[in-house]
């Protein structure tokens, strides 16, 4: 068998991150111990920057989508834009991670795994066969399993890693089984060929295809933490090191949803009357479950975990719209959402390092006055989550609703509106705790004083804030970009 032609350019984002991972690992051994942290962090950040640049070039140079490397990956703007989001999230995650008190002997591995994880993600969004899909998914999942458990001194971290490993593997297994069924029914691996086979062989109502489709949706639902496949999310988000949680909430969700849309519209266009309903139902369950469960959370990371489930619901509404407007809405929504998510977890990380304990509604009290930059940042992020104006979260939500309404799914708009109303209660509870508690209730930093402020964390929060706000004002240029990306999907 011949070696296929390899388009190295199309693979360059993954390669940049793999190279960074390798370098960081080497550095862990070769670089003097005192410099390992700075070396591996810089290498990892450069890897993400390199991947971002490569993705930007790919976006620029791929006005037509094309299949590369023996038709196993697709080079298009849709994937490139998702890669850009992952790369941005990665750089910010490195900045959040830098001050984390990871054990010194694990720092090199930590950043190496983070880069490798990003490599898997940017590979996954280009997947166009069932094989590359599964490969990319496992690639980044395995890295995440370890990252969640890397703080081996904390039982919660180990528990998070184990839980994510077991439930995540189950999700992967379901996805793999679904893929096998689809392959069995159609005899094809490539998404487009699957669609053609379903069409040609009259497999629209074939039991194997339908079961496979359902299992693939469920498997991707696990990764995107959409209800009812979300059970792992609160525990893992709570237990994992906060920078890892930040990266997961932004990047994992992004790639899982971006890929879900790609699979559904390229491989199963003939079944769209079925999967739109399925996705819509999952969206509503996610919105309901995520928002209602978040209402009673006291631990902030847990609360944001449920909030992320509800955001998966919002983005699934965009997928259920099954239209170019929906794809635009999904891509647009991801940008302010990722920024707000990373920013919110950065604020939590700052508080966690100040107090040396898990952050809750109680011990965040008064933080807004103590740390004005972080406080205003949290304000902006909560408003973005709630979809209030002056943040890109509003525009994202507006596009999602517009897409749903345009596809005749007005009841999803109603569900989204109700969910937003509920969500305000707990998002504003964070603001209330940070600014409005009585001075007597305030829990100030522990005896011995707070550790010095981390300039890097504050800078991260400022960047996230800027992205969240700029996406509100500069909608048109961003929409043009998402339009170019979305138009390459076959609707």
């Amino acid at each position, binding site marked *: 068998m011949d070696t296929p032609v390899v388009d190295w350019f199309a693979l360059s984002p993954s390669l940049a991150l793999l190279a960074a991972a390798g370098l960081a690992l080497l550095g862990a051994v070769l670089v003097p111990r005192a410099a390992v942290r700075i070396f591996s962090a810089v290498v990892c950040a450069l890897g993400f920057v390199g991947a971002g640049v490569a993705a930007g070039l790919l976006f620029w140079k791929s006005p037509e989508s094309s299949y590369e490397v023996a038709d196993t990956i697709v080079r298009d703007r849709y994937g490139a834009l998702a890669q850009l989001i992952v790369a941005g999230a990665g750089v910010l995650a490195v900045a959040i991670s830098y001050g984390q008190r990871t054990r010194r002997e694990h720092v090199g591995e930590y950043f190496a795994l983070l880069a490798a994880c990003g490599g898997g993600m940017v590979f996954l969004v280009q997947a166009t066969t069932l094989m590359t899909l599964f490969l990319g998914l496992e690639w980044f999942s395995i890295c995440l399993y370890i990252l969640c458990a890397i703080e081996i001194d904390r039982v919660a971290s180990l528990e998070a890693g184990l839980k994510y490993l077991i439930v995540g593997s189950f999700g992967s297994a379901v996805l793999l089984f679904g893929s096998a069924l689809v392959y069995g029914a159609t005899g094809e691996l490539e998404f487009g060929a699957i669609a053609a086979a379903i069409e040609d062989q009259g497999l629209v109502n074939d039991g194997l295809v339908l079961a496979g489709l359902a299992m693939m949706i469920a498997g991707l639902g696990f990764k995107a933490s959409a209800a009812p496949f979300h059970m792992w999310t609160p525990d893992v988000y709570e237990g994992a090191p906060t920078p890892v949680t930040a990266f997961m909430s932004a990047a994992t969700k992004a790639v899982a949803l971006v890929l879900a849309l790609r699979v559904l519209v390229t491989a199963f266009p003939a079944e769209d009357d079925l999967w739109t309903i399925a996705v819509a139902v999952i969206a509503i369950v996610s919105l309901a479950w995520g928002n209602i469960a978040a209402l009673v959370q006291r631990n902030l990371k847990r609360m944001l975990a449920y909030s992320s489930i509800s955001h998966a619901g919002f983005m699934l509404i965009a997928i259920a719209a099954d239209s170019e407007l929906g794809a*635009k809405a999904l891509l647009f929504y991801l940008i302010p959402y990722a920024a707000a998510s990373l920013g919110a977890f950065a604020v939590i990380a700052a508080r966690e390092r100040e107090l040396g304990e898990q952050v809750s509604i109680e011990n965040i009290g008064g933080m807004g*006055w103590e740390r004005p930059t972080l406080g205003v940042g949290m304000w902006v992020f909560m*408003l973005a989550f709630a979809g*209030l*104006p*002056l943040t890109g979260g*509003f*525009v994202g939500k*507006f*596009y999602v*609703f*517009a897409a749903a*309404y*345009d596809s005749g799914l*007005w009841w999803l*708009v*109603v569900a989204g*509106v109700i969910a*937003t*109303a509920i969500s*305000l*209660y707990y998002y*504003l509870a964070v*603001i*209330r705790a940070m*600014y*409005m508690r009585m001075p007597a209730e305030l829990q100030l930093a522990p005896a011995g004083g707070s550790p010095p402020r981390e300039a890097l964390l504050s800078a991260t929060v400022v960047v996230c804030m800027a992205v969240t706000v700029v996406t509100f004002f500069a*909608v*048109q240029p961003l*929409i043009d970009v998402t*339009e170019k990306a979305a138009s390459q999907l076959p609707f």
Partner: protein
Amino acid sequence: MNEWLTTVLIAFPVAAALVVWLVPWTNQMAGSLALLAALVEVGIWINALTRFDFNGGLEFEQQEEWFGDLGVSYHVGLYGWSLWLVGMAVVVGAAAIAYAYWNGRENPRAYFGLMLFLTGAIVGVFSSQDLLVFYVFFEAMLIPLYVLVGVWGGPGRLGATIKFVIYTMAGSLLMLAAIVAYGLERGSFDIPDSGTSDNHWIFLGFVIAFAVKAPLFPLHGWLPDAYRESSAEVSAVLSGVVSKAAGFGFLAIAIPLFPGPADDLQPLVLGLAAAGLIYGSYLAFRAPDVRGVIAYSSLAQMSLITIGIFALDDLGRSGAVLHMVNHGLVSAALFLLAGAVERRTATGELSRLGGMARGRPALATVLMATGIIALAVPGSGAFAGEFLILSGIFDDGWGWAVAGAFAIVLAAMYMLRLISGVLHQDVGPSVPDEALDLRPAELAVIVPLVGLLLALSAWPAAITEHLSF
């Protein structure tokens, strides 16, 4: 230059807010700067007034694409009547900031920054000509209000803010759904250019949002707490200005974009407004404290304004606009006076107040003058507004006019009860002998408001003949 004027009116206070908030001024400097900015904003408005062409329809119009694929643009502009609302908003905003400056507030940079931001957002509401821009400003008002009430409010502020936010957000999210539905059906979110719709559901989405904001019976549950727990100047802005966003919404959006549904559902809205008018007046008469009286009178007056708007004719509309400006100034002056009284006696309970007129001529005169205008004594601007509203609604059924006239009698009852409860009768247990008369600084804030009210009483046609709907 003229097309930028509306944007300047919106952006100047917001920019000033950023300057006040971001630069580490001393407390004194922050307050002075904010006051200066608020006064400059009034100056900009006066400049706009002199340039305004009252025969020209939509003036100072500016339109820039925001996201074109859905037909959304940043479109602002002013009609004659909305120019008056903007004027009322900037004047009340300046008075509120001046009052807060004189009173002193903790964390003044944040406080004054938010007050200025709020002013900008309100001006934005009154000048939006695109549904999404309107929604954005409508929500942007909520953000500073939430903090202003929640951080600087009274002891029950947390409950009050939760109620306030949940009521208003539930309303505005319905409106967002309505906006999405309307805009996608029409293919444009532009208010003047998107035509009209016959969809009753979408109309109701808008009406409920405005009915919460106004508020109208039975959606007024948030009102007493919010008006009682805010600081006096925030209550003044809330009841004087923010509530008028609902009036703007009815006049600029709900009625012109939905002529059919507005006609069909007119009895429903009028019924709720009439109920709110009587019920609010009754509650104002029974309220145990100064702020309660003003708060519930606000409910009644907003209902009256809604009746004028839903008369669906020119008389009613003109009266409604005049009354919106009047009521904005009246209730702002009354809330600031209530703040002055509370500052001296540490209570607002009418049973613990009384006899304050003795030895305090300035307080007595100003409160009396404001109260008399508020109860719409013939010859006052409020009387002119109410008269126009009642003549406007008379054609739609004399029953509505009777309800309105009855409420004017009730207004006299509750206002006189308020005046005598504070000023007359025996000296109340909470009124210390050494409580001072209004200080010059307080007079400097409140007297201009009363002066404007007297000017409008002398010449109501200044507004009613310069509306250019």
